[in-house]
């Protein structure tokens, strides 16, 4: 059974700060950071399960998530610069806060 796509382009999201064993493809530096959905890549088998010889099902939705560089590293980067990471749906949650400075 495939999960319904939870997010759409433009949605504000925060990367969950999960810290558990296993093969995790969400980089440490982006956990807990907030950005927005740039694109929906589609559904893919879950690498966390594939890595242990399982079938990776059910597929998970993969998103291209964009972040302002200055929001990720907490210091001044060139103001327009962005960081884009391919992140699976189960790592994302809706951002609660409105952030006036976060313009895509």
């Amino acid at each position: 059974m495939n999960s319904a796509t939870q997010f759409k382009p433009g949605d504000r999201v925060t990367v969950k700060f999960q810290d558990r064993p296993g093969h995790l493809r969400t980089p440490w530096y982006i956990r807990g950071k907030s950005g927005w959905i740039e694109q929906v890549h589609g559904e893919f088998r879950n690498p966390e399960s594939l890595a242990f010889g399982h079938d990776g099902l059910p597929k998970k939705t993969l998103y291209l998530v964009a972040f302002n560089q200055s929001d990720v590293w907490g210091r001044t980067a060139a103001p327009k610069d962005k960081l884009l990471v391919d992140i699976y749906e189960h790592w994302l949650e809706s951002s609660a806060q409105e952030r006036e400075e976060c313009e895509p």
Partner: protein
Amino acid sequence: MARGHHDIGGLPGAGPIDQSEHTLSDWEILADAVNQALGARGVKRTDEMRRAREEMDSAAYRDMTYYERWIASIEAILIEKKILTKEEIDRKLSQFESKWGEP
């Protein structure tokens, strides 16, 4: 849980990018081909190989070269899947070493 030794984006202390390139040795070409052949035959997945490298000893991860890490993970996964044993690899290697002329 600590951050994995492979999960290095943004870590401080990195130096200049060494842009020099090396021609691949025979053993590196072979490692690459064996890895791809095992994948093509459905014996292992790239995700399993990545996980094996993440599970390596952290000092070894930093000290080994790229293809050495590949070979270590190929060996680890083949042993985990009970396709080969460490003992038979050791035995085969001893046979080679006597042929290659250990000093």
